[in-house]
C-alpha cells in the first residue's frame, strides 16, 4: 500500500481556498444567522414591529401541549424514514443486478435508469399527476379492464400519503443505487470466489462478504435520501392532500403566506439542527471515496 507523502503548505497557498470558503460562508452561514435571529425575535419581517430577545415561539413549539407543528414534524420524520428505508431496500437489488448480473450492459442499463433524471424534477412530479389522477393512466386502465366502474375511480392514488411516498420513492431510487453500485463495482471479486471455494453457499457469501463490504455504499445511499427528504416540500405540494403535507411545506407556508417569519424560523432552525445531527451520526460511517473500502488493500 502506497504511503502518502506528508506535505506542508504555506499561508499563501492556503489563501486560494478562501474565495470558495467565503462564498459558502456568505450564502449559507450568514442566512442561517438571520434565520436564527428571526427565531428568537431579534428581527422581524414586518416593518415597524418591535424586536427583542424572545423564546416564546421556541417554547410554544417545543412544549406547547397541543402544538400541531410538533406533531407534523414527527409525521414528516416518519414519512422520511419510511421512504429512506424503502428506497434503500429497493435500490440494492437494482445495484446488485447492474454490477453482478448485467455485466457488459451494465453502463447502458445504468444510463437508462438515469435517463428520466435528465429532465426537470418538477416535470417528473407533474407527470405523476397525469398517471395517478382520478382520470389518469392508472384509473383509466382499471376502468378499461372493468376492475373499477367508470364513475368509481381509486381516489387515494393521488393527494394522499401514498402518492407522496410513491413519488419520493421514485425520485430517489437512482441516487441510492449509484453509491451502492460504485461500491459493488469496486469490490474485490476474489473475496467472493474465496468464500465459495471455502464452501459457502451463494446466500452465505452474499450475507457474510458482499453485504458487509457494500455497507458504506448502503449508508451513503440512505443518507442521500434521508437528509434532503427531511425538508422536502415540492412533492407533497403537488401530489399530497391536506393531510399529507410535510414539515417543509409548513416552513414554506410560514415564509410565503403567513406574515410570521419568526415562527417559521423556529421550524426552519429545528430542521437545520436535525439535519446537522443526522450528518454527525452518519458522517462517521461514510468514506469520502466510496471506492476506498478495505477491499482495495487486498488487491
Amino acid at each position: 500500500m502506497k504511503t502518502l507523502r506528508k506535505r506542508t503548505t504555506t499561508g499563501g497557498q492556503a489563501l486560494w481556498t478562501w474565495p470558495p470558503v467565503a462564498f459558502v460562508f456568505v450564502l449559507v452561514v450568514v442566512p442561517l444567522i438571520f434565520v436564527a435571529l428571526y427565531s428568537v425575535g431579534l428581527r422581524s419581517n414586518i416593518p415597524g414591529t418591535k424586536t427583542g430577545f424572545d423564546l416564546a415561539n421556541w417554547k410554544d413549539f417545543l412544549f406547547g401541549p397541543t402544538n400541531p407543528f410538533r406533531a407534523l414534524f414527527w409525521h414528516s420524520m416518519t414519512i422520511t424514514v419510511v421512504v429512506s428505508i424503502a428506497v434503500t431496500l429497493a435500490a440494492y437489488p437494482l445495484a446488485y443486478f447492474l454490477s453482478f448480473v448485467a455485466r457488459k450492459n451494465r453502463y447502458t442499463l445504468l444510463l437508462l435508469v438515469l435517463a428520466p433524471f435528465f429532465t426537470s424534477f418538477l416535470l417528473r412530479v407533474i407527470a405523476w399527476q397525469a398517471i395517478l389522477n382520478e382520470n389518469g393512466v392508472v384509473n383509466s386502465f382499471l376502468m378499461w379492464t372493468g376492475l373499477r366502474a367508470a364513475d368509481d375511480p381509486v381516489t387515494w392514488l393521488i393527494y394522499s400519503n401514498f402518492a407522496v411516498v410513491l413519488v419520493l420513492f421514485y425520485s430517489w431510487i437512482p441516487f441510492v443505487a449509484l453509491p451502492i453500485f460504485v461500491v459493488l463495482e469496486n469490490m474485490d471479486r476474489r473475496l467472493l470466489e474465496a468464500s465459495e471455494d471455502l464452501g459457502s453457499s451463494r446466500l452465505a457469501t452474499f450475507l457474510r462478504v458482499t453485504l458487509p463490504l457494500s455497507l458504506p455504499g448502503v449508508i451513503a445511499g440512505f443518507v442521500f435520501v434521508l437528509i434532503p427528504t427531511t425538508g422536502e416540500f415540492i412533492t407533497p405540494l403537488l401530489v399530497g392532500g391536506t393531510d399529507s403535507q410535510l414539515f417543509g411545506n409548513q416552513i414554506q407556508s410560514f415564509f410565503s403566506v403567513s406574515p410570521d417569519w419568526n415562527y417559521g424560523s423556529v421550524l426552519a432552525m429545528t430542521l437545520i439542527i436535525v439535519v446537522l445531527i443526522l450528518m454527525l451520526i452518519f458522517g462517521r460511517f461514510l468514506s469520502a471515496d466510496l471506492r476506498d473500502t478495505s477491499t482495495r488493500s487486498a488487491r
Partner: protein
Amino acid sequence: MTAINDLNRRQFLGGALGVAAGATALAACGSPDAPAPVPSGSASASAAPTASRPPISAESGKLSILEWAGYEAAGTKAQTAGLTEAGSAYTKEFGPDGLAYTYIENDEQALQKATSSADFDIMHPCEEDVKNYVDRGLTQPWDLDLIPSAKYLAPGLMEQTTYNGAVYMLPWDWGYGSLTYRTDKIAAADATGWELAWNEKYAGHISLWSGAQTNFEIAAMKLGLPKPDDLTDAEIEMCKAELIKQKPLNKFYWDSEYGQMQPGIQSGTLWVAYSWQDTLVTMKAAKVPVAFMDPSQGRIAWFCGFMLGANTANYYHAHAYVESFLNKAACAQMTNAYAYGTANTQVTAADVTDKALAESLQISDLGALTSGKNHLQSYTANLDKITKAWQEVKAS
C-alpha cells in the same frame, strides 16, 4: 495529524470567526427589511407633486407588477385567459416587453410578497388589505389627474381606499366568493349554505381555497358569528376548530384557480370548491354542470384594485398602465369575460352580453356588494392571529 491539517484548521477558524462576527453585526443592525412605515393618517401620505418627478421619457418603462394569474395586460404572451381590452392601450403604446408579472395565489401571500420585496411598481390587492399596505409603507397615493377614467370610479368604493384625502387603491374588479358545486353530484337540498363544505357525504371531493382570512370568514359565517372580520380570540379558536373538523374532507386546499381548482371540477375530482363567479362562466362554457351557491348565510363579497408601489421609478408608466385597465372598454370586456363587476360606473347593464348571468349575479349593480346577507370583506386587525391559526389548521 499532518501539518496541512493543522494549518488549515487554524486559518479556517480564524477567518470563519471574522466572517461570523461581521455577519452577526450585519444581521443585528437595523431590524425591519422594508422601508419605514407611513402612518395611514399622516400628512406624508399625500401625493408628491407631479412636477418634481422625471418625465416619462426618462423612465425605463420596465414595470414590475404583483398580479393574479389571468389579469395580465392584453398584448402580453401571458394573457391567455380572456382579457382582450384591459392593458391593450398600454401595450400598443409602450409594447409588452417591459411588463414583468409576479404571481400571487391568495391575499396573505400578496401582502407577504409585497412586504418582502417592496420593489413592485403596481400591486393588485383587495380592499381588506389596503390599510396593511399603507401602514407598511409599501404604497403611495395615485395622482388622479393622470388617470382620466378615475372620475368614473364608484365613489362609494373610492372612499374605502382613501386615507387622509389621498387615494391609495383604484378599485377595478368586484365580485363574490362562494361554493361552486357539480349539480350532477350534489343533491340540491345539500347546497343551501356554507355547511356544504362540511358535509361528510362528499368527503374527498371538496376543496377550499388556501386563503387564511377567507376560510375564517367562511367558518364564522357558518357558525353565525356576527362580525367575520372582527373576530375575538375565542371566536378565532371556534373557527379554527371548525376548520380542523372540515380539513379531512378536502381533497386539497387549492392555490391555483386555473391549474388546480377549475381542472378539478371539470374532471370530476372536485364536486365542491370555493371559487369566484368566473368559475361558473368557465365551467358553463365547458358544458360542465355546475352552480354557484347562494348560501343561506350570504356570499362573501370583495373588491380589488390597483396600488402604486412606494418606490416606483416608473411613476408615469404606472399611471398609464392602470388607465388602460380602468377605461370603460377594458372594464366592460373584463365583466363579460369573467362575470365580475367593475368599479367603472360607465359600464351598465346594457354593456353586459349575458343578461341572464348579469341578472343572477347582479354584476351591473354595485349595491349588490353590500346588499342583503352578503359579507363584504374588510380590514381585520387580527390578521396575524388568523394566519397563525390557519397554519395550525393546516398542520393539524
